[in-house]
């Protein structure tokens, strides 16, 4: 049998008992049945090995994937580090001669280990749920039906002439068979590539410290807020009014009539105010009202606004100190000049 072979010799596993180079043994009925029983046990071992191999690879993929997802998402409920139970650290610490009571593993790794363990158990169960002897038959068509018949005959302790003949026939065919096909090599290769890719991705994420769901720090700028509340000067127009937006121009035209009190004459014609010729600065009479574009200073021009406001205040104070002028009928201010 292949018990003395290295575990990785699956590719040419011989489950048939004596090797092909051995001389044909002289067997009795009991011998052939025993050999058949040993061969079937070996087939089952090969089936378990194939299932465990696949389970380990899939569990590795699940571990890396789960770890990567947890590191990227960084869910709030996941503790950053999980303390290792004392039942583990105690004996381990005693073994290595160190105090491991404070040992802890990252939360992401803990979650990944749980996912990997579940994946391993599921994959192994999935592979061994069908009888291993029949799985072996399916990858070795030459043994189809006869291997399971031999299995049932061995379990029934059959030792008839035809049963012995069947055992010898099956043992001979097993020498030409292999358990290698129990492992899906293509899938295994693909999984290996996935493992490499996930490993690289894990390294990349660790270097960049990427956290998609990481919450921003909730530290508030108290001083800045107080300063903003105490400020009484000009404010940023965009901040006060909000974002600029396009508005549609009005389409409705209205005619307005204003009775004049200064001219002493009747209004006999429609006029549009303000009259263009009277709004100019050179009108002399100063009866017109110049329209000006109102605007707010931008935050970076606060100093200028302060200066303008200060000048305006000084001018206003000088005007009050220099005597109060009347207001004529046009509403113009008669200053000291």
């Amino acid at each position: 049998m292949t018990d003395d072979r290295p575990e990785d010799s699956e590719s040419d596993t011989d489950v048939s008992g004596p090797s092909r180079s051995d001389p044909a043994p002289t067997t009795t009925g009991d011998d052939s049945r025993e050999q058949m029983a040993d061969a079937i046990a070996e087939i089952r071992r090969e089936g378990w090995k194939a299932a465990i191999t696949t389970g380990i690879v899939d569990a590795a993929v699940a571990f890396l994937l789960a770890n990567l997802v947890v590191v990227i998402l960084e869910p709030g409920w996941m503790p950053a580090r999980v303390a290792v139970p004392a039942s583990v650290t105690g004996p381990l610490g005693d073994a290595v001669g160190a105090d491991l009571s404070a040992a802890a593993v990252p939360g992401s790794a803990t979650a990944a280990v749980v996912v990997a363990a579940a994946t391993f158990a599921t994959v192994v169960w999935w592979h061994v749920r069908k009888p291993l002897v029949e799985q072996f038959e399916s990858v070795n068509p030459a043994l189809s039906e006869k291997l399971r018949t031999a299995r049932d005959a061995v379990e029934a302790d059959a030792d008839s002439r035809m049963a012995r003949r069947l055992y010898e026939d099956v043992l001979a065919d097993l020498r030409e068979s292999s358990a290698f096909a129990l492992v899906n090599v293509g899938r295994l290769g693909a999984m290996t590539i996935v493992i490499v890719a996930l490993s690289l991705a894990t390294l990349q994420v660790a270097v960049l410290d990427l956290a998609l769901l990481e919450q921003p720090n909730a530290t508030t700028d108290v001083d800045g807020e107080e300063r903003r509340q105490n400020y009484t000067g000009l404010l940023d127009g965009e901040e006060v009014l909000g974002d600029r937006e396009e508005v549609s121009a009005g389409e409705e035209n209205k005619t307005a009539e204003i009775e004049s009190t200064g001219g002493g004459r009747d209004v006999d014609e429609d006029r549009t105010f303000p009259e263009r010729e009277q709004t100019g600065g050179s009108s002399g009479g100063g009866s017109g009202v110049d329209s000006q574009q109102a605007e707010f200073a931008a935050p970076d021009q606060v100093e200028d606004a302060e200066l303008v406001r200060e000048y305006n205040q000084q001018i206003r104070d000088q005007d009050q100190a220099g005597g109060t002028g009347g207001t004529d009928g046009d509403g113009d201010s008669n200053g000291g000049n």
Partner: protein
Amino acid sequence: MQDEPDIADDVEALQAKVATAREEVGKRIVGQKDVLEQLFVCILADGNALLESNPGLGKTTMVRTVAEVTDLSFSRVQNTPDLMPSDITGTEIIRETEDSREFVFEKGPIFANVVLADEINRATPKTQAALLEAMQERQVTAGGETYDLPEPFFVLATQNPIDQGGTYALPEAQTDRFMLKLVVDYPGGDEERDIVDLYTSGSRTVPVERVLTTAEIQEVQDLVREIPIAEDLRDRAIELVRATRENEAIEFGASPRASMALVVASKARAFLHGRNHVSEDDIEALAAPVLRHRIILDFRAERDGQTPDDVIETLLE
């Protein structure tokens, strides 16, 4: 195995002899390979066969040739409505000796290894029952004495599906005693040409060799029963038979005797094919011959034109 006979050589030699016997029968029977195989299955499984076909298809020739290629004794019973049970089983006669008279049992034609019961459905039910009882019990009782039938013992009965006037259809309880029902169909065009050429030129009879002894046949019958069968295949055979009791198209299904017949016949077919184990192909190939005479179709299925073979085919799917 130095002290024991070489099993492998023994079995292979017997398998070769059975194959040769089939070839010998094939010299006389052109085509009909499936029927011939099933007939050998029946013999190796130690069962009885019911052959059904129209007249002139070589049923009698086939059975007679099977007896000739072996050293089995052969007898033929042509069933008619006036045939009495004692005509088959035998009867006690008074034999006079020098000083007295004594009753002596005169064995009937049933005391042979191979009994061909031609047109069994033409015999009265009483005669049919006597024949089939002997077939089942492997013994005959007359005048308070029991006489064992020779071993091996086969009854190969034929019946004609047409011209049913004056016939007595076999009751289901009696058809159940036949392991297989073989349907001999018309040969193909090429085969019919070969048959005509074979029997209309040269010798009137085609010679065959005797290749199997009675002891060898009994040895093969023992080996057949020793062939292992996987549990899932055995269960498949049983489930197939059980399904006949639940199918809507079947009014009466097959009995557990059918399950036993299907398994042992599958073993015999495996032996014929040189295998040491039963295959699913064996079960599927023999399902119809084992079951077709053991089920009674529902009248709705019959109205729809279904045959037992059609229903069995659906069960196999």
